[in-house]
């Protein structure tokens, strides 16, 4: 075996079966630039936000906005004296401006997190890192989302 192994674990949990809700519609409800700004200020407060240090990797052309791979990396030595405390990710046009907050520290070793997100349309994604000296650094990326040509509808 290589150093990586797979652990297949079963979890107990009261989860309803997925896929049983009839097809539904998303009403045109969107975060506004003001809501995005408020969401960011809720995290950052009045502190200045500098551009740099943060990188967001999203495929150049997203094949489906319902599941978009995203990796956020911050340039940091991740030492006790100089590390990333948190990473906050926001979007411009989903119904709600927040995507996720990640809390890490020197025991992370590397300031990089990856997840899969939903993006309702082509839009801007903003990632902000809070460093151990309480400075904030950000990057904004434009993401192009392919819309499905045929959607599943009831007819």
């Amino acid at each position, binding site marked *: 075996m290589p150093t990586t*192994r797979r652990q297949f*674990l079963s979890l107990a949990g009261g989860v309803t079966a*997925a896929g049983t809700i009839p097809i*539904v519609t*998303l009403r045109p409800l969107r975060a506004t630039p003001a809501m995005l700004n408020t969401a960011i200020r809720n995290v950052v407060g009045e502190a200045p936000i500098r551009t740099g240090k943060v990188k967001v990797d999203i495929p150049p052309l997203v094949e489906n906005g319902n599941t978009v791979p995203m990796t956020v990396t911050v340039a940091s030595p991740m030492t006790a004296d100089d590390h990333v405390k948190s990473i906050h990710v926001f979007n411009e046009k989903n119904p709600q401006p927040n995507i996720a907050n*990640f809390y890490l520290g020197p025991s992370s*070793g590397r300031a990089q997190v*990856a997840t*899969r997100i939903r993006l309702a349309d082509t839009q801007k994604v903003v990632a902000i890192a809070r460093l151990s000296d309480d400075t904030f650094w950000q990057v904004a990326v434009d993401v192009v989302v392919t819309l499905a040509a045929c959607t599943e509808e009831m007819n």
Partner: protein
Amino acid sequence: MAALINVPAKARRGDVIEIRTLTSHIMETGFRHTADGKLVPRDIITSFTCRYNGTEIFRADLFPAIAANPYLSFFAVAKESGRFEFEWIGDNGYSSTASASITVE
């Protein structure tokens, strides 16, 4: 309901290792409506925590913009042999846990 956990079985002291988790959850946004106009209530995982031998080393707040069956990848410094414990908490009292052990040489 299942979860997929990927933690190296072995590492050298000081190695930075990648941890990946994938868990079953519909992540219903709370913004969708049924054909007859009813709002489908929100049902998401709101929080994920990873502890390494009891100490929290990574935590995430999740919002409806996280895709169904949440996937998370993050890193940790292999300090000592022991256990990683994972916990997902969500709406409607949702809670689940998993763990994985590591040998550090």
